[in-house]
């Protein structure tokens, strides 16, 4: 037998083929099996509901994951997006059906922000509907695709329809924007994207997450940008007719901060401000941000865009948190 690679094609190609098979087992299949064996869903996580699962299917088929990662790295720069991702975060993912395999959600690009914990940042369904219909209606500089085809225009929506309060500049003529089932499923999925704590780790208690490094005023600005600006505008101008401006707002500029603090902690719904009534609810932040973070972001709001109200401390926030919703309202 000729043992010369240069002359024996069977030997050469056999080595090349089986060598690569062995390498594949070592570097890919073996580790994959190992990871699979050690994969446990996190204790406090739950499976997706049927509707959220449909939403995930849409998320995959629309290719949201080319621009949005769902992978928080253990790096400072990723801290605004949540706690570092763990294998358990993905443990419930499995092949979608006979034709399609396990969705690959980690992503390789972050043209838009990471979505691992987006429901904690953008828990308002209304904001999400508007944003899906036309991202630029709420984030002026967004380059995200508008998913207008997931909505219908109806002259007279029925009682069960979800009517999306699109700001006047972006509202289509001739009727109301109504979410289709696709939009509802997709938003249901997005609102399910909330990280659960890793058992035994410090993330169990509310701890500073919005901020990362820097002074408290930087932290306040950062939390505002990632959690508030979507609705209230990067410069506090609000979203006309849908979300109120904070610039010059009576509660934000009031010398007594207690209503301001209570609103951030417990949320608000159906309020009329300066003659405009806002139907959309503001989400509560009491379980999303620590007292120090809430104080920081409130101080940012009280001292930006021409606002000039006295600062609050985390003790003030703590006090109102303890009093609870009733006490403050």
């Amino acid at each position, binding site marked *: 037998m000729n043992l010369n690679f240069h002359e024996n*094609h069977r030997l050469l*190609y056999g080595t*090349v*083929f089986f*060598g*690569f*098979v062995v*390498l*594949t087992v070592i570097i*890919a*299949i073996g580790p*994959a*099996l190992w*990871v*699979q064996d050690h*994969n446990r869903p996190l204790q406090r996580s739950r499976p997706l509901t049927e509707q959220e699962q449909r939403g995930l299917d*849409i998320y995959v*088929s629309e*290719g*949201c994951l*080319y621009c949005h990662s769902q*992978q928080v*790295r253990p*790096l400072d*720069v990723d801290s*605004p997006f949540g706690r570092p*991702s763990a294998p358990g*975060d*993905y443990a419930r993912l*499995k*092949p979608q059906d006979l*034709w*399609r*395999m*396990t969705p*690959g*959600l980690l992503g*390789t*690009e*972050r*043209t*838009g*922000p990471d979505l691992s914990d987006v429901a904690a940042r953008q828990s308002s369904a209304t904001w999400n509907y508007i944003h899906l219909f*036309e*991202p630029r209606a709420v*984030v002026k*500089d*967004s*380059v*995200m*695709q*508008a998913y*207008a*085809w997931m909505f219908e225009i109806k002259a007279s929506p029925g009682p069960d329809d979800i009517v999306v309060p699109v700001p006047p500049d972006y509202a289509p003529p001739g009727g109301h924007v109504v979410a289709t089932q696709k939009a509802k499923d997709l938003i249901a999925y997005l609102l399910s994207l909330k990280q659960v704590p890793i058992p035994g780790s410090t993330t169990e208690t509310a701890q500073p997450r919005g901020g990362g490094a820097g002074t408290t005023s930087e932290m306040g*600005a*950062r939390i505002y*940008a*990632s959690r508030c*600006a979507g609705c209230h505008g*990067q410069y506090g101008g609000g979203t006309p007719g849908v979300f109120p401006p904070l610039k010059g707002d009576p509660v934000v500029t009031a010398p007594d901060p207690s209503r301001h603090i209570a609103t951030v902690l417990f949320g608000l719904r159906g309020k009329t401000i300066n003659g405009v009534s806002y139907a959309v609810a503001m989400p509560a932040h009491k379980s999303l941000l620590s007292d120090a973070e809430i104080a920081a972001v409130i101080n940012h709001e009280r001292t930006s865009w021409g606002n000039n109200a006295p600062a609050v401390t985390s003790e003030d926030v703590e006090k109102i948190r303890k009093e609870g919703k009733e006490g403050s309202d």
Partner: protein
Amino acid sequence: MPVNRPLAAKKTHIDRIIDEDYGLTRLIYAYAACASYWLVFGSILGEYLGIRFAFPDFGVHPWLSFGRLRPAHTNVVFWGWASLGMIALALYVVPRTSQRKLYNERLAWVSLGMINISVFAGVVLLMNGVSNGGQEYREFIWPVMGLFVVALLLLTYTLFQTVAKRIIPEIYISNWYIMAAFLWTIVLAVTAYLPWYQYGLSETVIQGYYMHMGVGMWFTPMVLGLTYYFLPKLLNKPIYSYSLGVLAFWTQMVFYSLIGAHHFVFSPIPWWLQTVAIIFSVGMFIPLVAGTGNFLLTMRGSEGTIARSYSLPFIFVGVIFYFLASGQGTFEAFRSLNRIWHFTNFTIAHSHMTMYGFVSFLIWGGTYGLLPRLTGREPRHVLVGVHFWFALVGILIYGFSLMIGGTEQGENWISGAPFIDSVKVLSSYWLWRAIGGSLMLLSHLIFAYNVHAMGPQAAAKVAA
């Protein structure tokens, strides 16, 4: 045609037709022509995607949405353009260096049909929202990719038999690379599509392997193997060192296989896997330096020949990009730099500098080197020159704008600015990308026209 061209050396005409096998010529031309159509289609998609970054509301029909067309772009240029373009040349090189006719031409025609159907079906499905799972380059669902793999199997069989029945005892180095690429890619695709070890995060382990091996075990060895034939052939001298080619081959096989996880540095997949990947990414300098060095040393002293040829400049650029862009990849794998560059547009720059500057340029060089010698029909030299310069300037604009933009994007994140600032930072670079992309697209239209001009039917008509 004594035109005064101060900017370009006058190109030499080919002197003779080197092959009289009309059947094979038609087959190769068919592959090359299909490849050029897919290239045009794929780059129209790419240009459209690029423009969308500047005008996000441009086209709101679901079929025109970014998330559906992005995988269409990547899969078309991977499986339609680059794969067919490389196979076209391999169908010549393997029989030629084995000094034997292609074992079975009909099977190769069947494969061509299957690949075209597979890419077409895959694109239509993606545009209708049917995606395998969103992992890059395996967005085609398995029946579609299965068709592609069967086509590869048929080709492997045909080419293997051709080598097996060779007249000379030696297996020329090109056939090491080319055949290995086919064998590796079959293993790779099967591994990627079997579901049983891909639940939860395991899918990501396989994705890292697949995504990198796709470029590293298919495109890279294929074009390197082709270059081991075309470069010496076109220069009319032997390759500088045969054993460097062999060294690069084995190191490529072992090192490249182990570095897939560097696509997921800092992710929750096992840390040791990431570390292995980073270490061997450095190891990649061995095949890289061996390969590039070998090519450049072969070119040394033949600068005049290169300047007078219209195919060799493409090969020269391809070799340079091979070195620079793969080296760039090693740096991207380091944790310290990955921290800045990962998730940014720097990756997009790298993808294009490799798949475009390296792979596509080498395919162009081979195509311009081969087709006229098969058909006796030359493209207009000016148009080849326009193709060359538009493509080169285009990819340089594309690559540099996104390398700078991607770095700024990463630094912007680290600075802790609001996320939307990083989007604003990129807007001018995205505009530059669209400009570079337009030049690239134009050059592809010219390439498709040139391929047509080199076609054999036209030759037959002239002869008649």
